């Protein structure tokens, strides 16, 4: 019904290449999240999928049919714009039903759908208001309602929650997740919010400079990043990157004036490439206070770390020290009662540590 194949799509505005060959295969009913830095071409890609902009080259298939040249109307795609784009002169009810009206759905049917959608989004008491008389969160829901009223083949959401306060954002996120479960419609969703990306996605596409850097499940993106960009983009605070020498398959790290040799899961791959210096990537949550980790017994190292800064964040405490003269973030339990100071005893778990090529930033293993 709503599978979407984006095949080698490029887009140039004049001389500038914005999209440089995008390939994404989206399954029917899949929830795909697009992330990437500002200006990398996410909205442009959404507009191309919707048919609001023409691709410079490449093809687009919707439910197995080539729609590269089809008009937006014929694609049967609904989009929630980042700016809501509500029709200012129409009341909420008309905003929601306008798409149905244009598609010649009879009046009674329209009224029924509007009421249904409004109830679902809890905006049924607002139906007579104009968009200017609504709060941001209410406008957001009207924009959603306009898309939902139509039951299209694909939903496109372009940063739909970015203007909401933290609490409302969490609420709406849950609503969207429930909605997707219930309707099973294909969704492509742009966000800058990592938690949104990790919690909602079936798969995540990480974009940079008009290229998909990696396309995979949240777990793959987080634990098996394809390169330093992806590794650094997901996770907050991001993965620690430290340039290290490799000696006998182990990473040499200097911390608090002592030298340590860390065992790496990918020693062979590094050796096979004959590298003696790599970028070690290790997530903050792998540097903790000493605690039992039975399944990773072989990968634990204990060392001293000088903490310059300790930031309690409620559920965790972030602490910043230095390895080889570079800042490393560690995520500690508040119960450990850590304070800033020299020579704090920490435990380093390298079971999931990764290594990147210094030159290319590509993952070695």
């Amino acid at each position, binding site marked *: 019904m709503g599978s979407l194949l984006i095949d080698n799509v490029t887009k140039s505005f004049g001389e500038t290449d914005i999209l440089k060959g995008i390939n994404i295969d989206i399954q029917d009913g899949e929830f795909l999240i697009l992330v990437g830095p500002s200006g990398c071409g996410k909205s442009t890609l959404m507009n191309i999928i919707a048919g609001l902009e023409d691709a410079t080259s490449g093809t687009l298939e919707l439910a197995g049919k080539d729609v590269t040249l089809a008009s937006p109307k014929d694609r049967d795609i609904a989009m929630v714009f980042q700016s809501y*784009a509500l*029709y200012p002169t129409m009341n909420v009810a008309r905003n929601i039903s*306008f798409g149905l009206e*244009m598609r010649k759905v009879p009046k009674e049917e329209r009224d029924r759908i509007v009421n249904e959608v409004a109830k679902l989004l809890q905006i049924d008491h607002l139906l007579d208001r104009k968009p200017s008389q609504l709060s941001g969160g209410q406008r957001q829901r009207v924009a959603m309602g306009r898309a939902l009223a139509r039951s299209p083949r694909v939903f496109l959401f372009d940063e739909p929650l970015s203007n909401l306060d933290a609490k409302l954002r969490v609420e709406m996120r849950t609503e969207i997740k429930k909605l997707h479960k219930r309707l099973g419609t294909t969704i492509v969703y742009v966000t800058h919010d990592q938690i949104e990306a990790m919690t909602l996605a079936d798969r995540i596409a990480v974009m940079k400079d008009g290229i998909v850097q990696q396309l995979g499940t949240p777990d793959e993106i987080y634990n098996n990043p394809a390169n330093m960009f992806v590794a650094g983009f997901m996770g907050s605070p991001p993965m620690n990157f430290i340039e290290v020498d490799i000696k006998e398959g182990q990473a040499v790290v200097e911390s608090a004036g002592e030298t340590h040799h860390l065992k790496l899961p990918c020693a062979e791959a590094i050796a096979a490439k004959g590298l003696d210096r790599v970028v070690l990537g290790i997530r903050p949550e792998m540097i903790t206070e000493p605690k039992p980790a039975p399944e990773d017994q072989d990968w634990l190292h204990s060392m001293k770390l000088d903490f310059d800064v300790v930031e309690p964040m409620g559920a965790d405490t972030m602490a910043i020290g230095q390895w080889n003269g570079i800042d490393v973030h560690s995520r500690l339990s508040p119960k450990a009662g850590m304070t800033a100071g020299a020579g704090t005893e920490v435990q380093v778990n390298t079971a999931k540590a990764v290594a990147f090529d210094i030159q290319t930033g590509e993952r070695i293993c």
Partner: protein
Amino acid sequence: MVANRSFNLGRLFIYGCLLAFALFYLAPLYVMLTTSFKDIEEIRSGNLLALPQDPTLYAWIKAWSSACTGSECQGLAPFFMNSVKIVVPAVILSTVIGALNGYVLSKWRFRGSDLMFGMLLFGCFIPFQVILLPMARLLAELGLANTVTGLVLVHVIYGVAFTTLFFRNFYVSVPTELVKAAQLDGASFFQIFRHIFLPVSLPIFTVTIIWQFTQIWNDFLFGVVYSGPGTQPITVALNNLVNTSMGGKEYNVDMAAAVIAALPTLLVYIFAGKYFVRGLTAGAVKG
């Protein structure tokens, strides 16, 4: 206390100036109106600024229905109707075309649309006199010389540059995402115009219609050049009336005729002027 007094003096000065200017501008209108209600005896003997001692409608009736404009003596009435026949279609057509042009040039850009807009803008700066001869040629070729249709055509062509500019600049401030949203909702080019753009367009329609109405009603040059004996607009007839002297000069009739010719634009300003100002500033304030 001192600050307060100087403030009051400043106020006094400003209001004084405003009053003086208002009087200065209103004086001719006052003279026109009072003179038009006097009889010719009173004009000869009396004071220019005095109120009419024995007000009479004689001059108005004569100006409207029997004053001579050249060889004919039917008053201004037929020419008033000519002007209406020219102004109404010309205003409607140029406004509608301008609205559609503005809609396309702001929201449906195509290759060369900016160039096109630039050239249209250029049309605003072409002086009337430059196009007189070529336009006369064109009208003759089209068989429209000396016709009302021909005059309507000239005014529409000349007016479209301005109306397009007005609408284009107004519609630029309508978010483009509304167009995209409506496209996804399945609305067509004209449906988007009708349902999204028309409902927000009242201010700019008011401005454009008032502007075009005054321009075309007050036009003299095109009227005198492209009209025939039976199709002259009121401005041309007024000129002829004032210049036709049979016997003595009847200033009261001239004045009444001038007021009649100016009345429609005056009324438009009095009744719609505040919408005009509001419309001109509407784009400046968001929402």
